[in-house]
Every structure is written in C-alpha cells, then in structure tokens.
C-alpha cells in the first residue's frame, strides 16, 4: 500500500473538493448545489481516512470523524430536501435566484 505516495491520494481528494466548488459556483438549481456539497463532504472524508491510516495508524479519530460527517451529511440532505420541496410548493421553482424574500 505504501507504493502510492500520500500526495497522490490527497490529489484526488483536493480535486474532488474543487470540482464540488465549481458545481457550487456555476449551478443555480438547489438540488444540484446540494449534490456539489455532497462531493465536497466526500473529499473531506477521504482526507480524514487517509491521514488516519498513514500518519496516525495507532489511533481511530479520523474514522470517527468520518462516521460523524456521514451522519450529519444525511441529516443535512434530508432537511435541505424538505426545505426545497416546501419552496417548490410556494414558488413553483427551485432556482436560488427566484428565492430572494429573505434578502430584504
């Protein structure tokens, strides 16, 4: 396993993070923005597991953080989708540009 340098695995997670950032910047549909956030959380999880496995192999804290992040991501997705469906009922649209009542 050590024949792959750590920086190559971190390359994958960094690239995944910035792909998620790109989706967050360009998309204006709330569901696709939520998908980008899932990609970002996944890249963070990869980082936690890799650092735990290679740098601190006698501890388990990275695994715990990964488990908690996955749990909170599930809760966050459920709440976000409830809000999106409610917004769609009142506005007939899930574009972030049309939901601007909170701005004023």
């Amino acid at each position: 396993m050590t024949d792959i340098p750590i920086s190559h695995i971190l390359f994958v997670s960094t690239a995944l993070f910035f792909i998620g950032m790109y989706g967050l910047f360009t998309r204006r549909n709330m569901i696709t923005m939520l998908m980008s956030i899932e990609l970002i959380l996944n890249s963070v999880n990869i980082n936690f597991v890799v650092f735990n496995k290679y740098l601190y192999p006698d501890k388990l804290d990275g695994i715990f953080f990964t488990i908690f992040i996955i749990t909170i991501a599930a809760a966050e997705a459920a709440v976000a989708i409830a809000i999106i469906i409610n917004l769609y009922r009142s506005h007939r649209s899930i574009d972030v540009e049309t939901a601007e009542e909170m701005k004023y």
Partner: protein
Amino acid sequence: MTASQIIFYILSAFILGTAILSVTTTKIFRSAIWLLFSLIGVAGLYFWLEVEFIAAVQIVVYVGGIVVLIIFSIFLTQQSGKEMVKPPMLRLIASVLAVLFGFALTYFLIYKNDFQAGDKSFDWTVNKIGTQMLATGENGYALPFEVVSILLLAAMVGCIVIAIKAPAEVSSTGTNEQQPSNIENLKEKEIVEGL
C-alpha cells in the same frame, strides 16, 4: 507498476471523471446518476485503503440513502428530461479560474509539506470502533454520539414540520373567539353574493 497502483489510478480517474460529468451535465437526472457513480467510486477507494467498514457505511448511507432521496426530490420538483439553463459565460470563466487557482495553491501546499507514511500498519476492527465510540473515559466518543443522535431526532422532526402541508386557513385560526366573526363574515359574503 504493481496491481495496487493500477487499481488506485483507475479508481481515481473514475471518481474524478464522474464527478466532473456530474457538475457539468445539463440534465439534472443524469447529474444525479453521475453523482451516484462518483460516490460508488469513493467507496471503492475506501476498499482500496482497506477500511472496509467506512466503505460499507458509505455505500449504505450515501448510495442507498442520500442519492435515492435526491432522485425522489428531482421527481417531485421538476421534469427530469428538461435541460437546465446554462450559466453565463463570464461566470463560467470566473469559476474555472477560481477553482484552478484554489486547486493549484492547495496542492502546492500539500506537495511542499511532503507527508511521509509511517511503517506501522493500520489496525482497526469494528470491535475497537464500537468500544471507543461508546467509551466515556479518555478518547471516548460517547458525548458526540449522543449529540449526533439528538441532532438526528431534531432533523427528523424538523423535516416533518417543514414538509408537512399547511392546513387550510380557516381551521388554523379557528379559535373560539374568532369563529363567530368568521361565521359572520361567511354570512355577509353569502348575503352579498345573494344580492
């Protein structure tokens, strides 16, 4: 090049390729399916890292839960075959530049830091994870565990409250004092309509 290296590079290309397709395709349903493949690829990466427990959790929660939830909400909110509007060219160029510069800076920092793997092998078992997760002493994670369970309960109640259909206006404001006035209003309306 060993088989392990080849598997890692194939997995990485798969994850990144499907992730890029997921954020660039114009049909929202395809975007969700590409996201599904990307998450499965991440689970494969966990298998490659020999952390099978996290890989199983990833498949169960992300692939089995979140993506299915997203697909359902797509079906509830819009026509899945419809093309999404493309972002304006200026925003596209600006976001590509921002992302490229951010990636270059971050990867430069990682490359300069030069992390070195230790010789020890990673020893985890589900038994150890469970014991430490519910331990109350030093390095125990009992408190975060309980906090997360409360958070899940709050999220569940919050989802039901947010997504429930609001009852009709008359029944929601129907207290004892207001009901007569409502009835009077209704009678007045009937009278006016009758006239």
